[in-house]
């Protein structure tokens, strides 16, 4: 019993020691953090006039300088933080002036030195600032640091700093390839990072679209956000036939968003693709292409197993005049299961817009549809069609 109690005493003493150390540390940190916060506020106030001076000369032909006199390290941090905030906001000459100010003030040099610091905190802080200051001279060291860093949130911070700073497309390519090498399917995150670049995005995208690495092709397709630039259409046309399913799906979405003229067999091929994303993109595009010949394909796609394909098909049918609307009504009246529900939902949406049309053409189009509707469902537009849908069951949405 005695030895057991002794063990408990030791435990108690250890706890007491740790508690005392913890409380001291806690108060020390709190006092330090509060003092830092107060300093920041004080220096922001102190340099208010200087900030006004910088702002008012951003578009003048003068070289910006630091305030006169010796600045403390905290003051330098406050000025640097303000410059970085403005660099994000401004473009063109104003931004260049601020970048030059950061260089002349030695901020860039300081942070490049900090990249070799033994303290991880200091290194990551420097990475963030160098990205903020678009320090192209730091890119080789940033790349080296990225190569040494295990994959995690810090990798993303370094990658972003490289994307902001790099002036050579090869550096961006290497950074993206490194991100892909972790095999984490982070194409969307990588695309977001890519969009931080200062380089001419059109030529960078073109290079990436032609890259032999399908991962890089996918990143550039994702980064285009569904807005194809006409110059890319031939490349997209080629990628539509890619064997990489992700690349093909993204390429089709982009390609179709450029309103291309499609052959009937291409349409049929896309609408029968085994990737739902391709079928959904094709179904969506057919409405705005006003390809009335595609109505049978869209009608059949109302029965697709994927909700997005069904929904986009119904949306496109609704855009294809009376004939498209009539196909929807037929599906709502004679179809079954999800096809019927999708059609019903779309019809309800259209019919609920009665009286909302101000343009004569819109009114005429609506009235034509109303006639079709009345033919199928009788003259009771204010009533619900059938019973509440909602027995369908797929989770493809």
């Amino acid at each position: 019993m005695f030895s057991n109690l002794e063990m408990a005493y030791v435990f108690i003493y250890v706890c007491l020691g740790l508690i005392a150390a913890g409380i001291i540390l806690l108060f020390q940190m709190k006092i330090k953090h509060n003092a830092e916060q107060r300093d920041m506020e004080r220096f922001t106030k102190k340099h208010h006039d200087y900030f006004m001076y910088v702002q008012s000369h951003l578009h003048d032909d003068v070289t910006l300088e630091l305030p006169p006199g010796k600045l403390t390290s905290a003051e330098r941090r406050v000025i640097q933080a303000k410059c970085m905030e403005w660099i994000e906001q401004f473009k063109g000459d104003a931004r260049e002036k601020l970048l030059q100010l950061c260089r002349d003030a030695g901020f860039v040099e300081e942070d490049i030195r900090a990249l070799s610091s033994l303290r991880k905190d200091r290194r990551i802080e420097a990475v963030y600032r160098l990205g903020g200051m678009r320090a192209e001279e730091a890119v080789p060291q940033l790349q080296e640091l990225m190569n040494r860093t295990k994959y995690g949130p810090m990798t993303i911070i370094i990658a972003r700093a490289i994307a902001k700073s790099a002036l050579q497309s090869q550096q961006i390519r290497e950074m993206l390839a490194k991100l892909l090498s972790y095999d984490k399917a982070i194409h969307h995150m990588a695309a977001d990072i890519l969009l931080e670049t200062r380089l001419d995005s059109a030529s960078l995208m073109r290079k990436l679209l032609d890259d032999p690495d399908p991962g890089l092709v996918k990143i550039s397709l994702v980064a285009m956000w569904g807005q194809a630039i006409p110059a890319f259409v031939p490349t997209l046309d080629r990628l539509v036939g890619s064997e990489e399913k992700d690349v093909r799906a993204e390429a089709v979405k982009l390609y179709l968003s450029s309103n291309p003229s499609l052959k009937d067999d291409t349409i049929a091929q896309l609408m029968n693709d085994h990737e739902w994303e391709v079928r959904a993109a094709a179904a969506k595009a057919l409405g705005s292409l006003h390809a009335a010949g595609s109505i049978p394909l869209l009608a059949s796609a109302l029965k697709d197993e994927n909700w997005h394909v069904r929904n986009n098909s119904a949306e496109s049918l609704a855009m294809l005049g009376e004939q498209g609307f009539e196909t929807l009504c037929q599906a709502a009246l004679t179809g079954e299961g999800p096809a019927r529900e999708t059609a019903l939902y779309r019809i309800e949406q259209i019919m609920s817009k009665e009286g909302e049309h101000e343009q004569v053409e819109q009114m005429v189009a609506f009235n034509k549809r109303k006639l079709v509707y009345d033919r199928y469902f009788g003259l009771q537009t204010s009533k619900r069609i059938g019973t509440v849908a909602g027995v369908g069951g797929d989770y493809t949405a």
Partner: protein
Amino acid sequence: MVTIYYVMIVSVLYFVIMLFSFRNIKDIFRRAKYSTYNTLSGSELVPSVSLLVPAFNEELTIAENVRCLMTLNYPTYEVIVINDGSSDETLKVLIEEYGLTLLPNPQIRGKISTNKVRGIYYNPQYPQLYVIDKENGGKADSLNAGINLSRYPLISSIDADSLLEKDALIRMARMYMENPEETVAIGGDVRIANGCVIENGEVKDVSLPRRMWPMFQSIEYMKAFLGGRIGWSHLNGLIIVSGAFGLFRKDYVIAVGGYRGGYPGEDMNIIIKLHRYMLENKIKYRVAFCPEAVCWTQAPDSYNILSNQRKRWGRGNLKNMIENRDMVFNPKYKIMGLLTMPYNVIFEALNPYFRITGLLALLGYVLLDMTNWKVLVVFGLVNFLSGYMLSVGALILEEIAFRRYTKLSDQVKMLLFSALKFVGYHQLGVLWRVQGHIQYLQNNNSWGTMTRQSWKDKKEAA
């Protein structure tokens, strides 16, 4: 002496988990400080999310909470409020506030079985808001109804009495985007809003609660979330993502059959099911915790409401442990089977019994021979100091990474309540858990009373 050793072992285990939290806290701080959200929050590249908000008798807070959710810094999302057969005016408040009308032919895509959906309300002027009105079936049933209607690949469950910080969702999405294929769920940090200044559905000024019960809970949450969950998530052994705020991959939630209805503890249950599914199917995965994504919640501020909540938690925990007993010490389930589940059974579910029997045995022992009073004191001290040490650890973690409470007096108050917690509150916690277990054995599955205050009243009362 067995009891003293038990307490010491629990403390050492807690301590080890907390060490993992300390190991990660600097990275969390850097991630929160140096990750930029301005490009992400306006980007089409961020995955779309369906926010599911189950509401039962929330007429006082629902309008403000929905307003908060409608103004998040997030590119594409929908808010689905599920009125779970409220007996108050929750539905009416929403209909009037947002001019909603009944959708004649709503598209319900899912088929998880739920209680009858009476209707779905919508207003094209608020295209991202849907309100489902259904018959009462509990929180899990409501979440399942929300999943059935949802359009997007990610779902986020949010309590109707909680307020999300504007960047909370985008912070979670950033974490998801870092590893989208392996991430099945991400939990957010839940903090106590009592005492804070709330304006337009947003926490404007952070303060500690002025009342005793919420204050104790504030300390408790900090310890559990920062001290515990950061460490557990590092081991990929997180057993719970708080029902108040979590993000999930919808396809996997559906693959495990959605939320389990009919019993509390659905938030723990879904995570156990996800672990089980991923491990049984040998799919690489992670259940992550994102402490920088913060959700502020109204804590119960009266004895009755708090005791009901804790009994419910006790019941839910026991049910989950019994239902998944095959996972305990089963190497097939890796960290879950060998560490998380045994830990939860021995040191959480059975904790009250070890402590109570130990204390009674010690009391008996001392009564037989009064010269051994020292043993009793040692037991008390071991209990108190080990718990207090972990609370101090949680406060240090908070100070390193978040610094939400800026005043020195807040620090003193938190340290004081961390100590006071062991005089009464801690013992009540043990009692409530035992009562929860008794309710489980009696098949008593009532929710208990739960009253809400509007955020405005809350500000005055806290």
